[in-house]
């Protein structure tokens, strides 16, 4: 066996807090060999990223390494001073961050940022550095590298920017790359391309890669070795096939079981049972008081015909010179009462724009939307207000969709107050009841959003959406910012809502396995057009359009899972 390029031995990171010393990383050890990709997997807060940051000396004080050793190419690096660690960063160890949209400085061209890094580490002249930068852009397969060199980050798409970030990481011929959730913010198809590129580069340049992720599909597709972390400790490690095929630790087992499967439809999402932190969602109590007086006469709740939305791309004084971008192009579908309708597609395909038009957040440019027999485009202000009460939205990012200056109680009370549904004295008890039903402790009422985790915040969003007792719920990527285990909890809540309250849902996602589990029917969107609408099982088993087939092929899978385990999950 080749010698490891990087060895982490018994590493412990401590953060002193008022309530004593907190150890986000405790006794972690693993090795990386040249050309090898090691996946580090676990929930957020498991210490995966903290380990990577500790290795390259980017810990935010007061966090510090208190125990253990880090060896790089036979040299101990954890005891180096700040200047010594800076020399290693971006030199022998490079990093790739999660969000390509924010990791590049928007005010400098891509070329400037590359040249700066190359000159720093390799000491080349400006022209040589430029030559090398263009070669690198070419290597990460950015078309027209010579012209793109002079462009700014905002002129690149998300996937292209992540390629630029990878090029930046390669600037100095590193021996180790720490990739922290490099594809979490990307679409399935882009994710596959970026992961392929990382695999290829690791092999070609004999670079050791630490791939931090919470996505088991990515682990299965990309890595050679896996380290599973839970609450700062390594619970299990070994080769990828060994960990995924025959996990020994209970946490690993339940983590693998919780990954939504595209192959079969299960009644509920299996949850990560280890640690037992799920709080109950009291659906029965909620169902008792639910107003069901309104059911649609025809069986069809929402009918969309020829829906179109254009955005101004380039303004001009003369209307004939204006350029428009058609975000949604002649989209038609209908949603039955009590049905969960899925909408899938890559980012930019127009799925969120459809949702926003349905929620009247964007005006409709063409076509009609009919809700329960009434067309929403022709509604008076009063009718529109009544319509808005019946539809509610749950957004993707639970961190930005809740006002940080409002208490949770006020957030949930706002729709009630706005629609004047209850008298002032009734609002408080009703809000407390809602918070209780979505599984939040009573003290949540006075707290502020930042005091909650992502999953809890999404529960707050659900409570807010349910406050007006809506009939139609629009969920725009409700779990794509969450861990697998939390995702399962939230999705199960949504399933319960649909089952027990008869809610109709529009469920938008780019995660196909989740869509398979959640939806009755699915529409596939591409470049503003609806390319296919089918029953979910039919879509997954007999896709009609070539684009749907392509999407299904790109989905990372856990092939290692045996038939028997799937059978176990069904029970």
């Amino acid at each position, binding site marked *: 066996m080749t010698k490891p390029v990087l060895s982490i031995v018994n590493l412990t990171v401590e953060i002193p807090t008022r309530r004593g010393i907190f150890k986000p990383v405790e006794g972690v050890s693993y090795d990386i060999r040249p050309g090898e990709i090691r996946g580090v997997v676990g929930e957020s807060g498991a210490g995966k990223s903290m380990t990577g940051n500790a290795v390259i000396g980017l810990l935010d004080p007061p966090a510090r390494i208190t125990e253990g050793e880090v060896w790089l190419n036979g040299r101990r690096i954890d005891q180096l001073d700040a200047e010594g660690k*800076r020399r290693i960063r971006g030199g022998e160890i490079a990093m790739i*961050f999660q969000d390509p949209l924010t990791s590049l400085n928007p*005010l*400098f061209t891509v070329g400037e940022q590359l040249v*700066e*890094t190359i000159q720093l580490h390799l000491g080349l002249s400006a022209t040589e550095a430029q030559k090398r930068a263009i070669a690198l852009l070419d290597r990460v397969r950015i078309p027209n590298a010579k012209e793109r060199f002079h462009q700014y980050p*905002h002129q690149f798409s998300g996937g292209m920017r992540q390629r630029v970030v990878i090029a930046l990481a390669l600037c100095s011929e590193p021996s180790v790359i720490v990739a922290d959730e490099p594809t979490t913010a990307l679409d399935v198809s882009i994710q596959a391309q970026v992961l392929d590129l990382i695999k290829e580069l690791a092999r070609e340049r004999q670079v050791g890669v630490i791939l931090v992720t919470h996505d088991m599909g990515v682990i299965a597709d990309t890595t050679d070795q896996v380290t599973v972390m839970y609450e700062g400790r390594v619970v299990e490690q070994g080769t990828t096939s060994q960990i995924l095929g025959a996990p020994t630790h209970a946490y690993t087992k339940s983590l693998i079981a919780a990954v939504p499967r595209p192959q079969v439809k299960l009644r509920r999402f299996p949850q990560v049972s280890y640690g037992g932190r799920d709080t109950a969602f009291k659906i029965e109590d909620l169902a008792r008081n639910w107003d069901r007086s309104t059911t649609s006469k025809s069986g069809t709740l929402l009918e969309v015909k020829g829906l179109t939305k254009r955005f101004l791309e380039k303004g001009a004084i003369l209307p004939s010179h204006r350029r428009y971008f058609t975000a949604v192009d002649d989209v038609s579908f209908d949603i039955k009462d009590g049905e969960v309708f899925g909408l899938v597609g890559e980012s930019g395909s127009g799925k969120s724009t459809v949702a926003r038009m349905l929620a009247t957040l964007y005006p409709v440019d063409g076509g009609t939307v009919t809700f329960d027999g009434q067309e929403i485009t022709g509604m008076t202000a009063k009718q529109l207000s009544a319509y808005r009460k019946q539809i509610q939205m749950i957004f993707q990012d639970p961190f930005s969709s809740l006002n940080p200056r409002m208490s949770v109680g006020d957030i949930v009370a706002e729709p009630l107050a706005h629609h004047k549904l209850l008298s002032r004295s009734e609002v408080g008890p009703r809000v407390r009841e809602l918070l209780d039903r979505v599984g939040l402790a009573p003290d949540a009422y006075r707290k502020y959003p930042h005091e909650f985790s992502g999953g809890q915040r999404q529960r707050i969003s659900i409570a807010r959406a349910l406050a007006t007792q809506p009939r139609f719920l629009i969920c725009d990527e409700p779990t794509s910012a969450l861990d697998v285990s939390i995702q399962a909890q939230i999705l199960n809540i949504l399933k319960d809502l649909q089952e027990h309250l008869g809610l109709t849902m529009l469920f938008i996602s780019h995660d196909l396995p989740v869509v398979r589990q959640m939806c009755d029917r699915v529409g596939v969107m591409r470049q503003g057009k609806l390319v296919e609408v089918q029953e979910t099982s039919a879509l997954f088993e007999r896709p009609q359009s070539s684009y749907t087939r392509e999407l299904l092929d790109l989905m990372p899978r856990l092939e290692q899972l045996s038939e028997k385990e799937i059978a176990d999950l069904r029970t």
Partner: protein
Amino acid sequence: MLSFIVKRVGQSVLVLLVTGLVAFSMFTFVGDPIDNMLGQERTMEDVERLRTQLGLDQPFVVQYVRFLEQAAQGNFGISYRQGRPVAEILMERAPATLELAAVSGILAIVMGIALGVFTAIRRDGVAANLIMSISLIGVSLPTFLIGILLIYLFSVELGWLPSFGRGETVKIGGWSTGFLTESGLKALILPAITLGLYQMTLIMRLVRSEMLEVLRQDYVRFARARGLSNRVVNFRHALKNTMVPVITVIGLQLGSIIAFAIITETVFQWPGVGLLFINAIQFVDIPVMAAYLMLISVMFVAINLLVDILYAMIDPRLRSAS
């Protein structure tokens, strides 16, 4: 980029038309100019004659258009008090105000940005905290009080610097400058500090909070992860991003330095347009007031136009969006 500039210039012209309307309205609504011009002993015929002669019997709109025509040519009429053309008086006084504003503006920008960056980088340092506390005084004390305190300390007690006036000036063409004589430069110090102190603390606090925000961004972390030194990260990557919002505010503040000059000029008896304006108000010298208003608004608009263009030059995202 060109359509962006054309648009901004169009908006600027609109702003000037509106302030022109306000300035013009002063003639019509703040008393009757005929009353001001003719003395106690006048006949009805005199009044009528002057009214037709000055065109004051014409409809409002016609008068406004004529006012604009005249103003565009730099003709703002004749001062009621001094009996000389307003444009001439302004030209005499403008250099004093512009020199004072320029020096205090540069002082405010340079010191404000430097201290702002320093306090952001050394966020928890003793010096940074001391500067932040002292800067509170700069924001909270009124300008005239700072001026009086400076005069008391440096002119009365220490006797180092003059307490009023511009010192000796040298005339270059039509422009009288205080930059070339020792007494002129000495006289400039106290008023410039007085005028610039508030803007300086404001810019400093803004730069500090923007910089702290920028230092939290992912691209700064990523720049560090690329191994760039602190100096490059702070002064190349972070500072440029900090400047984007700061520039807008600096533009507005430079405008108000000229407008706020009134108070400083009064305290230091500085012979600029601000002092002229105060005197004009006391004597209801409307042509001077109107001209001053127009002058200030032209400055404001011009500075903000420059700022907008500068903004687009720094931020490539704005360039392509326009």
